[in-house]
Structure formats: C-alpha cells, structure tokens
C-alpha cells in the first residue's frame, strides 16, 4: 500500500466520532495566547458508564482485549455506539443486551453468573473451602503426638551451627 492510500485508510477514523471526553477548547490564562488548554471536566457519568461497559465487552476482532483497551477502529466505533445509546437514555443493561443480540454471549468479557456458568464462579471457592477443611483434618491428625513446647533455640538452620549459637544471643 502506498503511503497516501494508508493515510486515506485512516481518514474516516480520525473524525470527531472517536471516543473521548467532553472537549470545550478554552483559552487558558492571559499569557498563553498560542496554546489552548482543554480543561478536563471531571468525568461525566456517561464517560464513567462508557468506560465501565466497554471494559466488560470484548473487542470482536482482537485477541481477548476489551473494547476499552483496544485501539482498533471497530472498538472505537463500538465505544461510540455505547455512548450514543447511553445518551439516548438506554440503561447499561440494555446496551449490553444490544451487543449480545448481535454477537451472542461471547461478547461479554466474563460469563453471566447464570445456570451452568455458575460453576466457573463457584468451583474455585469450593476448592478453597474443601481444601482448607481437608488440610485442617489432616493437620489435626498430624498434631497428635506433638510434644511439649520446645526448649532451646528454634529457627535454626542445621547447615550453620555457628549461626545457631549466635542467634541464641539475639533477643527475639
């Protein structure tokens, strides 16, 4: 591709349609006549919602990136869709439902906690609980026969008897 063609390729993308926060170009202080500083308006609720929803949706042409993280053109346009739908008054759930209607459940970055999908959320927790219980039972068995509290220095590394003797001197 020639450079010119490449530039043309990107031309429609660089329009104002790309996702961004509110821009109100203002003149900064009296001295800075050349520069215009954009005051970053504290993030609007819409901005926050767009970011929130975009983080939870998958960029369809990327490898596992969310819409928020992906720099690709499709992701930028999809963020625009999120924004315009929110501005029209749709709820975040409605926006997500729209994308699921086009792309299927796969577009969500994590599975909905419903039905069979619950297993992926529950099993790890179960694993920790079951493991902990098992360990406690085993530990109880192992502790039977634990002798009287130890006398003498502890925390001794057998390979360094020198150190053991001297460690004893140090108040713990």
């Amino acid at each position, binding site marked *: 591709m020639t450079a010119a063609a490449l530039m043309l390729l990107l031309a429609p993308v660089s329009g104002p349609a790309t996702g961004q926060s509110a821009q109100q170009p203002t003149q900064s202080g009296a001295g800075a006549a050349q*520069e215009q500083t954009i005051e970053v308006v504290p993030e609007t609720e819409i901005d926050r919602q767009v970011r929130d929803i975009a983080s939870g949706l998958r960029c369809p042409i990327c490898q596992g990136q969310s819409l928020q993280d992906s720099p690709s053109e499709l992701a930028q346009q999809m963020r625009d869709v999120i924004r315009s739908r929110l501005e029209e008054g749709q709820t975040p759930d409605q926006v997500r439902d729209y994308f699921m209607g086009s792309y299927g459940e796969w577009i969500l970055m994590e599975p909905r906690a419903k039905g069979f999908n619950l297993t992926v959320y529950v099993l790890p927790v179960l694993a920790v609980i079951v493991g902990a219980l098992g360990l406690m039972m085993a530990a109880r068995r192992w502790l039977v026969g634990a002798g009287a509290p130890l006398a003498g220095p502890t925390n001794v590394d057998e390979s360094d008897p020198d150190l053991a003797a001297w460690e004893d001197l140090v108040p713990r």
Partner: protein
Amino acid sequence: MIRITGITAVSIALLVAIWGVIAAVLAATRRMPRLAESARSAVFATFALMTIANLSMIYGLITHDFSIGYVAQVGSRSTPLLFTVISLWSALEGSILFWGWILSAYSAVAIWVHGRRLGSLGLYANAVLLGIGAFFYLLLIGPANPFGLVSPTPIDGPGPNPLLQNHYLMAVHPPLLYLGYVGMSVPFAFAMGALLSGRLDDTWLRVTRRWTMVSWVFLSMAIIAGMWWSYDVLGWGGYWAWDPVENASFMPWLTATAFLHSSMVQERRNMLRFWNQSLITATFLLTILGTFLTRSGVLSSVHAFTEGTIGLFFLGFIALVLVFSLVLLTGRSTDLRRAGSLDDPLSRETVFLGNNLLFTAFTFTVLLGTLFPLVAEALRGVKVSVGAPFFNRMTVPLCVSLLFLVGVGPALPWRGGHRDQLKRSIMPPLAALLLIVALCFVIRVPSGWAIAAFGFAGFATVTNLQEYSRGVLARRRAHGESLPQALYRLMMANNRRYGGYLAHLGAVMVAVGITASSTYRTERQVTLNQGQSVEVGGYRVRFDELTGVQESNRYVIGAHLTAFDGTRDLGQLDPRLNFYNGRSDPVTTPSVRSRPANDLYLNLLAYEQDGSSATVSVIVEPLVFWIWVGGLVVALGGVIAALPPRRRLAPRRSRQPAAVEA
C-alpha cells in the same frame, strides 16, 4: 545444503533418542552397564545433533536462504540483523526447533551431573528425558518441519510478525520462557525415575530441588519480561490480560512455587512425599498443556501461531504423558505415603501447608477459567468468553491471602516457637501493618482489597527484613564483622533461606506495584488539535505535530507531544503507528515516561491526514516501575537461593554426602 544438514541432524536425533529410551529401560531392568553407557551417550549425541540443526537454521536465516521453508516464512532482507536472529523463535516451527535444542541441552547437563550416580533411577530419568525429546524431534520431521524445501526459491520473504519486531524484549522473553518451561522436564524425569525404580526416598527430591529452583528463576524472569513487553508494546497500558498463553506460563510457575516451599517440609519432616511428586508432575503437565493450548488452535490467543495437525500430535503426547504419570503416581501412592507429623500449629510448616493450599487453588482457578469456554461449548454448545474481569475478581482474594502468608511465614520458626518469642518478634510488623492501614483510611484508598494488600505488604516487608537484621546482628556480635561483610557472609552461609527472603521482598514490590497501578490508574482518550493540551493525573500533555517516515519494512506515523508538570517541561513523547506491508491494521508503539512514582503512558489511536489533529489515549499509572524492579529482585533472590552450598567453616551436620547438592 543447510536444509539437508538440518533435517538430517533432526532425523538422526530422533533415532538416537528412541534407541536411548530402549537402551536405558533395558539397562535399568536387566542391569547391563554397557547399555547404560550407551543410553547416556545418546543424550549427549542428541544435544550435539540439535546444536547442529539449530546453528544451521540460524545460518540460513542470516544468509537469507529462502529455499528453506522456515526462512521463507519469517525471513526478510529488510529485517535488521538482531531480529533476523531472534526470528528463530518467532513462529511455530522455529520455536519447536529451539525448544528441542534447550531440552537436549538440559538433558545433557542433567545426565552429565547425575546420570552415573543414581543407578536405575538415573536410567529411568534418562529414558523419560529422551522420550520427551523424541516427541519434539518427531514434530520437527513431521508437522512442524522448518527445513522444508521451497521451490522455486523466493527472492524475499515477509519478515517476522511485526508485533515481534517492535521491541528488544522479544530477544529475551522466549529464551527465558523456554529455559524455564523446558527446565521443568528434568525434575519431572527424576520424579518418574523414582516412581519407576522404586527408590522412593527423597533422593529424587534432593536432586531435583535445585533444578526446579533454576527453572523457576528463568520462568519468573520470563513472566516479568512478558509483562514488560506487553506493557511497552501493546498500547493499552496494561501488563497482564489473562490471555490463555499468559496463563499457560503462569500455572506451572504457581505449582513450582508451591513445590519449592512444600519440598522444604519434606526435607525436614519426611512427609508430603506423594504431594510433592504430584506437584512436580503437575508442573510438567502444565507446561505441555500450555504448549498444546497455544499451538493447537484450541483456544484463540495473542500467541496462537498456527493450527493444523500439530494439535493431534500434541494431544497424543499429552494423553500418553497424562496416563503414564497419573497411573504411576496413583499406583505408587501407597508406597509413597508416610505418616505426617506437626509439632505446633503456629509453625512454619503450617504456613507452608497454607501456602500450598492457596497456590493450588490459584492454579485450579486459572485452569478452570482458561478451559471453561471449552467446557461450556462441549456441554452447552454455546461460546462464552472468560476474560480479565473474571480472573481479577477470583484471584485478588487469593493473592492478598498469599501476601499475608509471605509475612507470617518468616516470622514463625520451624517446628514452632516460644509464645513470648513470637509475641515480641511480631510487634514491629504488626505496627507497620496497623500504621499502613490507618494511612490508607486517611488517604481514602478506594478498595478494601487494596488496603489489605498494602497492609500485608508492609507486614511482610518488616518480617522479612527482620530476619536479615537479626542474622546480621548475630554475626556482628559473634565475629565482629562489618555490616556489608556480615550481610554477605550471612547470605552465602544460608543462601537458600536468605535468597528466599529476598525473593519475598521482590514479590512484595511486585504486589505493591500491581495494586497501586490498578487502583489508581487514570486514563483519557481525547482528540487534540495542534497546540491543544489535555490534563490527566497531574500531567499536562500538548500535541505538537505529526510526522510520517518510510522505513525499510514499514511506514511510521509519529505524534510529537510534550508533557508538562505544572510549568516544568518534562520532554517530548512520541507514540507511533506502524503500518507494515500487507497488514490492514497498524501496530501501535506507545510512548512511556517511566519514573519510580508513576508512569505517563501515551498511545496514538488515530490522526487527521493533514496532521492537524491526533487522537491519543493518555494513561497515568503509579508505581509500575516497581513491578519490574521487584521482578528483578525476585530473580536475584532465586539465583542466590539456587547457589550450591559453600563449604562451611564448621563441619556440616547435614545428612547428605557433600557431592550432592542440597
């Protein structure tokens, strides 16, 4: 010529490996010393042959011999020399060739050091190593053949994947990863050797512990390098996306870390033998599974190079290894099991048990999440995605709990300690914990998990440093050494322990870096006209101009932006978009200003063709710098811990012969 050399070397390596397996097994079962020698020589021979094959390929890449299939696939006359050499591992066939080389090298070292002294255990290990090698050599003359003939010879090639040409870390990440990954084959081989030979005492453990440690160091460095590369190259300001191949490298690291701890319990108390065997087996299996997942096209991933029949080969190999090792493990379990005993619930042993529980649960969670799309499709017929939000949600509690243990472990002695001793030594760390938590509430840290993480990090730092200070003070009092001398001698005399504490400190740094950068990340995406600025996270960023440069293999659009801290000019940043021939989407090169306090991260998303405006994303993330520093500290700690024990001034009371490493 090169082609023939390479393919012949690999083919002979395959035959030699098969012969070596047979010889080793026969030698072990029938006690035939000459066959034993032959089996050992087979290992050295495969190393020599794989060296020839790899050097041939490197030569072919450098001389741009496009008659060789792999060179035609990834080579290009316009690629700079460094990237030409490292394109050895930039695509599937070359990376398998490289893997085979490292495997043969590790096998040669392992057999050279241990092959003769361990009798049938050593011979079975020999057989397992050659067997694994044989699989990879088979791949190389079969579905992953890099030495295929391309006729007519092309004049030039497409060059390696542009994502792999953008950064020097690509020279470092795959070799480190393979050194770590492949290294796990050795402990596995000796573990299998123990099960097969019936020599179930902890001979195999003593032999393999250092191997696992070394491989673990490489794997840790590889993971950090991968994160760093991801951060510097991919443009989204993150370093870990829970992509399947990231998970594939992480899971063996988790089980290996668990093993490094629980093996200490086995050494001291002769318990957990079955568990340790299982951990090492799991580590190896996870490395093969990881390779399968990313090479076979089962899951789509950033790293998925190609699909095809290679998946079937890997499946067959996994099936074989899985059945073989699991049957052997469970079959021998009754012989392995020994009654365990614990002296005190408040002891280091208990902490290590907790450590293993958490690491195992962690591995299980990551594995489940990675495979769940497959399971869901198999059982429900629907495709679902399991991405970063899931993994972050489920693993944060585990990570914070582990951070807690990092603090508690060093504070509790082996076999338990006097209660008053413990009470006294816990004071400073506890004070640090409370202080930090209070501070977090004052500055209103937004997340409970973050507060816990910071608190435990402080706690762990104090307990680990306390161990150092106690040891150093003792030495100074005893020997009158200067501070640096005492520190050095302390670490060298007990390198395993103090290397471990150092690694803990590194891990704490990484944890703090990750916690801070994710909790306090600020980002904006905005379109700026020339001369316009935007303020993000305390910085002001001004767009100055756009440039376009034609390079040998790509066209580069750069945006020049200046960063300000108040009125102080911080310099220019230039994020770029790289357009490679034949690819529809450009590759981003973000521009990062990295400082210990925070990183200012700029990525160019779009631009106006006349250069009048640019769309950039500006991200400010605190403490990312400490993730990389912490990673290096972890690696340093691991290296120190892996050092061979020095001959001590006093006679050692250890039970093993001096020649075998601890």
